[in-house]
C-alpha cells in the first residue's frame, strides 16, 4: 500500500518547563503513507529548520518499539490509536487524508516537562532502584540449571518483564499512577524463585517509592492496560495490592 496524504498537526510547543506553552499548527502536504508518525515529525522539523524556526523536540531512539524512549498523546491517546503499538511504530496509513492530529506530551506530576513533547521520566528509574532487582552480586551465581522453572511460569514472568518503561500507563491514568509499571516488575520477580527472598520487602519498598515520587494511586480505570504497547495485564495491579499486604518473609 502506498500513496500520499496531507495532515494537519497541532503540537504542544513549550520551550522550557517554566515558560508558557501553546499549540502550534502545522500542515504536512502530500507525504508518503508509508512513513511513521515520527518520520512525519522529522519531515516537519526539516521544514522548520529551513524556515529558521525551532524544530519540535520529541523523544525517540530505536524506532522499532523496544527502547521505550518515544511516547506522546495522539488525539488524547497515549501512543495513538493502534493497539499494542509504540508511537514510533504508528504509520501514517492508519490515518485519513486531511486528518488533524493533536500531539501532547505525557502530563504527570512525576514526569516534569522538558520541552515540547519531551518529559523527564527519571522517576521510573527511582522505582526500580527502590527494589526492582534481585540482590545478587556478580560472581556468586549458582549453576543456571540448578533451579528448575516451569515453561509456563517462565513465560508468564516474561510477559510482565517485557515492560519497556515508556510511561504510557502513567500518562493515561487520571491519577498519573505508576501502578501498572510497578506491578509488572513485582510480578516478574515474584513469579520466579530468584525473586522470593526479597519479595515482601520489594513490594512494600516499590509502592512506597511510587508515592514518594509523586505518582497517584490506581483509579481502576484500566486505561493503562488499554494503552500499554506490551499489553501487560492490569490484573497484576489487583495482585500487587494483595502482594503489598504479604507478611514479611
Amino acid at each position, binding site marked *: 500500500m*502506498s500513496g500520499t496524504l496531507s495532515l494537519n498537526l497541532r503540537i504542544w510547543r513549550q520551550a522550557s518547563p517554566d515558560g508558557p506553552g501553546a499549540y502550534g499548527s502545522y500542515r504536512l502536504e502530500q507525504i508518503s503513507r508509508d512513513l511513521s508518525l515520527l518520520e512525519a515529525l522529522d519531515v516537519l522539523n526539516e521544514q522548520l529548520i529551513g524556515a529558521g524556526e525551532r524544530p519540535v523536540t520529541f523523544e525517540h*531512539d530505536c524506532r522499532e518499539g523496544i527502547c521505550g*524512549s518515544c511516547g506522546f498523546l495522539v488525539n488524547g491517546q497515549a501512543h495513538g490509536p493502534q493497539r499494542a503499538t509504540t508511537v514510533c511504530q504508528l504509520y501514517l496509513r492508519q490515518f485519513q487524508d486531511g486528518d488533524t492530529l493533536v500531539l501532547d506530551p505525557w502530563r504527570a506530576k512525576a514526569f516534569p516537562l522538558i520541552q515540547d513533547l519531551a518529559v523527564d521520566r527519571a522517576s521510573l528509574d527511582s522505582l526500580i532502584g527502590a527494589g526492582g532487582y534481585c540482590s*545478587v552480586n556478580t560472581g556468586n551465581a*549458582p549453576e543456571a540449571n540448578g533451579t528448575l522453572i516451569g515453561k509456563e511460569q517462565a513465560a508468564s514472568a516474561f510477559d510482565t*518483564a517485557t515492560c519497556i518503561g515508556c510511561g504510557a500507563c502513567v500518562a493515561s491514568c487520571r491519577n498519573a499512577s505508576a501502578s501498572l509499571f510497578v506491578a509488572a516488575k513485582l510480578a516478574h520477580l515474584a513469579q520466579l524463585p530468584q525473586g522470593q527472598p526479597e519479595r515482601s520487602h520489594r513490594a512494600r519498598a516499590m509502592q512506597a517509592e511510587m508515592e514518594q515520587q509523586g505518582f497517584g494511586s490506581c483509579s481502576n480505570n484500566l486505561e493503562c492496560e488499554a494503552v500499554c504497547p506490551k499489553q501487560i495485564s492490569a490484573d497484576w495491579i489487583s495482585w500487587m495490592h494483595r502482594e503489598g499486604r504479604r507478611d514479611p518473609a
Partner: protein
Amino acid sequence: MSPRSAGLPDPRIPAGPIADAWRRTRDGLPLISPLRKRQLQVLVVGSGLAGASAAATLAEQGYRVKLVTFHDSPRRAHSVAAQGGINAAKNYANDGDSIGRLFADTLKGGDFRAREAGCHRLAEISGGIIDQCVAQGVPFAREYGGTLANRNFGGSLVSRTFYARGQTGQQLLYGAYQALMRQVAAGQVELLTRRDMLELVTVDGVARGIVCRHLITGALETHTAHAVLLASGGYSNVYYLSTNALKSNASAIWAAHRQGALFANPCFTQIHPTCIPSGDTFQSKLTLMSESLRNDGRVWLPAKRDDLRAAAAIPEAERDYFLERQYPAYGNMVPRDVASRRARELCNGGQGVGPGGRSVYLDFNDAIADHGRATIAARYGNLFEMYERITGDDPMAGPMRIYPAPHYTMGGLWVDYHLMSSIPGLFVLGEANFSEHGANRLGASALMQGLADGYFIAPATVTAWLAGHPTPELGPDHPACREAEAQAHGRLHALLAAGGSQPVDAFHRELGHLMIEYCGISRCAEGLHTGLKQVALLEARFHQEVRVPGEAKGPNGELEKALRVVDFFSLAQLMLRDALAREESCGAHFREEHQTPEGEALRDDGTFAHIAAWQYQPGSGNPGQPAPAGEPVRHSEPLEFTLMQPSTRNYR
C-alpha cells in the same frame, strides 16, 4: 608472519597454553584492598550490556562509579533491541558442544582475523554469564521440565543459544540495568543521564576523565576519574540507514581516537541480510527481521530484469530462487555475508523488486502449503505482525520484501588482552572495542561479548591497572580539563556559526548513500577511492552549507546530530582507507579484486593475518573544521594460530 609494528603497544597476550590462559591471568592479577577501592573513582560511558554490567560490578566491589549515558535512562541503550539470543558453551543440549567448540566457531566465524586467546576466553566465560543472568531473574525460555531451553542459531551445528522470546537483549539489559539501579540507590553509582561525551581528558598520556555536554541545560561538564571505561557501542549509523537506534553514534570512541587511541579494523562491518528495506527518502530506520525466517522462507527474484509484475503474477517457472540455485547444499541458509552479496548483485543487475529495485522476496507460500498456516503463524506470528505494522503488507498473503542492512561493527578501538586501549587507563568494552569477532561476528555472540567484558573481564583488569598505577586525584580545574573543555566549546560554536541552510540529516543521508555504495556489502579499489574523494567533498560542503539552529544552551537536538555527523565523516574516511589497505576478502569484508573463480571470498593469510590498528594524525579531518584529510598511520598486530589453522569457508 610480519612483526608487530613499532607504534603498537604490547597486546599482553598470555604466554603458555591458551586453554587455561584467562584463569591463569586472572589468578595472577594484583588486587586492591576494599578500603582503597572506596577512594577510587571509575567512570563508565555507556549503559548498554557492557557499560551497565561493568558499572554495577565495579560498584559491588566497592569502587565509586560514575555512569554517563546520553539516554534519559540506562534502560534505553541499544542492547535492548537485540532479538536472537546469547551463546554459551553449557552443552545442555548434549550435542557435543564444549568450550573448545565455541572457541573454534568464534575464531572460524571471524574468518581468522581475531586473537585466539580472546576468543577462547570468551568461550570460557560464556557459561558464567548465563548463571549470573539467571540469578538476576532474567526470564529465559524453558523446557517443560524446567531446564533452560536452547536453540540452534545462525547455521551453528549445536544448540547453544539461550533466549527470551525475540527480546533476549531487552531482558539481559534489564538484568544489568536493575543491578545498576541497585547500586545507584545504594549510593555507589552516580548516574549521569542525558550527557554526550565530547572529549577525553588525558594527563601525561593517561586517561583521566571526560568532557560532556548536558543535553538539557547545554552546560559543558568535566568528570575526572582514576580509570575511564568506554562502552558506547558500534558505528553502523555511519551508513545513515541501519538497524541501530537513531542516536547510536561513534563520538565517544572517536574522541578517544583523536586523543591517540588506536582504531582497529574499522572496515569490518556486518550486514544483516533480512531487514525491512527502505522506501521513502524520509525513512529513518531499517528494521531487522530475525534470521530465523530463512528457515522456512524461500528467497527469490523475478528471473527477468525489470519485471514489474506483482509477485503473485509471476509464474513459478519465471522465478529465480537464486540462493537455492547457487548453493544447492545450504540453499537459503547460507551465511549472512553470502546471502547479502548475492542479493545485492542481482539487484544491481536489474532483477530487484520494490522501490528502486532494492529488495528481494522472502516467500512463505510453500512453507504454508507444507506445514499449514497455523504452524507458520506459531513460528513467526510476531515477526509477521511486525512486518505488517511497518509495511502494511501481510506476509501470509504475499512474499515479504527484504534487503541487507548494516547491523553490527566488528571494528572498534584497539584493546589489549586486558581490554585497555593504547591510552593507558582507558578501557573499551563491548561493541565499542574491536576484540573477538574478527572479520565477521557469529550470531548470538554480541550479547555474550558485551557481558563477558562488563561482568567479568574489565572488573578484574581495571583493578589490576589501578593497583599498579596510583594516580593522584584530578580537580576539574587542571589545565588538561580546561584544554579539553575549550576544545569542546570550540567545536560546538563552530557548528552553530555555520551559515548554511541545509539540515544535518540531509548530509547524513548523503554520507550513508556513499558508504553503502562504496564501503558496504562489496568493495573495490576504484569505488573506495571514489568514496574517499566524495566523502571529503561532502564533509567540506557540510561545513559550508549546514544550518544548526538554536544555541549551545538548553536542549538542541540538531546540535547533537551535527556533532555526531562530524565524527561520522572522519570515521567514514578511516573505514574507506582500511578497506582499501586490506587487499583481501575476509569475513564481511569483500574486495571484488580478491575472489575465487566461483565468486567466493579469497583470503590472503600470508599478507593479512593481522589486525590493522590506525593512529590518528592531528590535522586529519580536524573536528569541527573543514580541514583537508591527513594520512593516519596503519600499524599491524600479527595473529598467531596455535590451536587451529586457518581454513577456507566453502558453502557451494
